[in-house]
């Protein structure tokens, strides 16, 4: 209704000037996607950005592939076998696959890719550490490779579906050089790279010889748009067909829903938010105070009102899609009276100060933190919010243990495995765990890493979640949805929780 008001007001203002609205038309078969960031580099070993993966999943393939349903399926490898001790994986490769430059994909290309990632070139980038479990790759025959591991890595097969493990063309890189490859990527994927303009966009075209079948659209344009309001305006103007998360803010959900030409697609994503406690100093060193704080906050109302239902409450620091998620784990209830009692029991005086550290650029958390603070005020605490610049918070305040009583933890582990977050959040001495030293928790975290039996691991991961919940190490908040804004002319599009949208099956009107 408010929307209509604005529209008619502005419409009236402009009535005097009659001009035909330039109806933006897009070339048939061309799809335009808005990305929130310019990855800067297209080399798989150089990046860690989700925006990179959104584009790269259309240019490159990995040995394994994980689609929007998050199931691991064959990619460039047709099948694989893991040895008994988990330290050797044998891949049978897909045949007759060619890179965009025409050179054949084979076992040598796989070996080249991983030698490069784990060697000098990989050392310059951030990806190498994700694949540290791999000792070497051995060529058995042109269509078979063995991965020899230093130690078993339960999430390695998932990691082979993304980022640093994308297979790159050996001859092309050797001939054209690393720098050229960086800005002119070549892979085996559904789309070929045409051009890249820094800060503006990147253009791809269909690869008719794609091993998975030729794409249904001919051109694929990505535009870099950093401002949320601008991205949505471009979508409304018909100049962008798909807005990829995480840019659409909750506040603009009604705008998109109110536009008959647009569709809002929202799926639970990997990103979770929590406020971690300083369990070493101050009043939050007392577990009763921590529990009281958790009970004081009405998380359901926060999720319903501020997040407009585009998120779900969490009990442990993981998404419902992650391995280790336990639907039966119960958190503490919303109970302000109980919270007051616990605070009194712990000897906390009314008006006790409390600082909440958050990321300054996180608009949603900004609102949530203010709501949390008003709930804490209601039980007699006196909270203040301190927003930090992202890099300062992540690199200085948290690792150095200089936070307030509560500080924001936000994580979007793309492997959808609780270990990915839990280990670095709760194990002693880890960067994200400046305060807690708990031998029992350490033992649990260490014990699941070598396990190759997924069910067995999941059991331990659930134990970890229950243990953390019991010790009230954090105020769990929510798991945000990945929100896509899509023009209705786009057909057959499936939103992916991890932003890796492969667009070979999509058509446009």
């Amino acid at each position: 209704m408010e929307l209509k008001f604005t529209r008619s007001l502005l419409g009236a203002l402009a009535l005097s000037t009659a001009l035909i609205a330039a109806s933006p038309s897009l070339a048939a078969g061309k799809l335009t996607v808005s990305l929130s960031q310019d990855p800067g580099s297209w080399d798989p070993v150089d990046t860690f950005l989700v925006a990179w993966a959104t584009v790269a999943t259309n240019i490159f393939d990995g040995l394994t592939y994980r689609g929007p349903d998050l199931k691991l399926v064959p990619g460039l490898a047709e099948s694989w076998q893991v040895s008994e001790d988990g330290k050797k994986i044998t891949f049978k490769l897909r045949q007759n696959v060619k890179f965009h430059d025409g050179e054949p994909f084979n076992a040598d290309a796989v070996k080249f890719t991983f030698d490069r990632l784990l060697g000098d070139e990989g050392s310059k980038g951030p990806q190498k550490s994700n694949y540290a479990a791999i000792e070497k790759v051995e060529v058995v025959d042109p269509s078979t490779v063995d991965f020899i591991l230093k130690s078993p890595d339960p999430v390695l097969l998932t990691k082979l579906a993304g980022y640093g493990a994308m297979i790159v063309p050996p001859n092309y890189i050797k001939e054209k050089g690393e720098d050229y490859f960086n800005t002119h990527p070549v892979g085996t994927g559904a789309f070929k790279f045409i051009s890249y303009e820094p800060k503006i966009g990147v253009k791809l075209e269909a690869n008719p010889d794609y091993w998975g079948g030729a794409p249904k659209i001919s051109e694929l344009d990505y535009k870099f748009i950093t401002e949320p309001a601008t991205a949505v305006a471009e979508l409304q103007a018909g100049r962008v067909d798909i807005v990829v998360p995480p840019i659409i803010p909750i506040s603009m959900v009604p705008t998109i829903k109110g536009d008959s030409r647009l569709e809002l697609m929202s799926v639970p994503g990997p990103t979770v938010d929590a406020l971690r406690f300083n369990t070493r100093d101050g009043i939050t060193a007392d577990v009763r105070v921590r529990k009281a704080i958790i009970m004081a906050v009405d998380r359901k109302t926060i999720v319903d009102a501020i997040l407009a239902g585009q998120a779900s409450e969490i009990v442990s620091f993981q998404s419902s899609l992650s391995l280790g998620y336990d639907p039966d784990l119960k958190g503490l209830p919303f109970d302000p009276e109980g919270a007051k009692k616990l605070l009194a029991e712990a000897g906390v005086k009314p008006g006790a100060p409390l600082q909440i550290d958050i990321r300054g650029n996180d608009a949603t958390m900004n609102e949530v933190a203010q709501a949390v603070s008003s709930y804490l005020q209601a039980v007699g605490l006196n909270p203040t919010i301190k927003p930090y610049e992202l890099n300062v918070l992540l690199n200085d305040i948290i690792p150095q243990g200089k936070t307030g009583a509560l500080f924001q933890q936000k994580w979007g582990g793309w492997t959808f495995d609780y270990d990915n977050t839990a280990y670095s959040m709760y194990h002693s001495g880890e960067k994200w765990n400046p305060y807690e030293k708990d031998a029992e928790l350490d033992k649990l975290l260490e014990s699941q890493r070598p396990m190759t039996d997924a069910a067995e691991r999941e059991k331990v991961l659930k134990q970890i979640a229950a243990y953390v919940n019991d010790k009230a190490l954090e105020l769990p908040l929510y798991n945000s949805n990945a929100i896509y804004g899509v023009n209705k002319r786009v057909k057959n599009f499936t939103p992916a929780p991890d932003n890796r949208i492969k667009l070979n099956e999509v058509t446009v009107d």
Partner: protein
Amino acid sequence: MIGFLTKRILQAIFTVLVVTLVVAFAIRLTGDPALISAQGGGTVTEADLQRIRVALGVDRPFYVQYFGFLKGLLTLDFGRSFVGGTPVSQLIGTALPATLTLAFASLFVSIVLSIPLGVKAATTRGKWPDQAIRIFSLIGLSFPNFWLATMLVLLFAIALQWLPPSGYDGFSSYIMPAVTMGLILTATNVRLVRTTMLDTLRSQYVMVARAKGLSETKVLYKHALRNCAIVLLTFLGVQFGGLLGGIVVVERVFNWPGMGTLAFDAVAARDYPVLQSVITVLSALIIGVNLLIDLAYGLIDPRIRTQ
């Protein structure tokens, strides 16, 4: 004359050097770029960070990095971006034209608006058109540029859909950002044109021209305007820095891939080479424009030299 020239040029070079030193030093206080570049990995060790630092070259002492940067400047080699390794010269090669064309488009808008309005104000001095123009220019001066930009987007891009809401592609994408900046510049320029016109209209040669029986329009546009152009041009030097600063803000609203966008992204990523190059190039431009105007003045009016 030669002495004056050399002195001004040496001063300009000195200023550029101080700017680069201040900037290079300051941005190295903003944080460790290796940490940013390693953020994605969940299990980054100190050894990983050190490895990235060596690759980026930030493990070297400050003076080595600074002299490396200066040496590069001489050959227009600004190094490589820490994010993705693109040569900075290539990034600036696309961003600088985007910013400069927008700056010229804004100046154009402001000149096209301020000359007729300023002339009108001067010729109707004290009457209602003069006062209306004065009020409008004061209102124009009082607008926050980012708010004006947002309101224009809401009206022309979303409600009416006449203009693209953002981007840098073709004529139509220039209209809103150039009008935003142009309107705000017009506010100051109208006053300048008005004052200059009033001065000129009283001057001897205009009186002579009138006495010769030239039509009023001819007097205005032939003689008086020439003076206005000179005043506006001089003022351009003063405005140029402010204009570039304003464009940085407006670029954000319109997703304009110019120097401001480059600088903002570079700060967030602690991308030293990009940030120090962007600031150096813009500062050098401002200094250069002012130097040129000074020199031109020095040629025209020898009295300036002694000041």
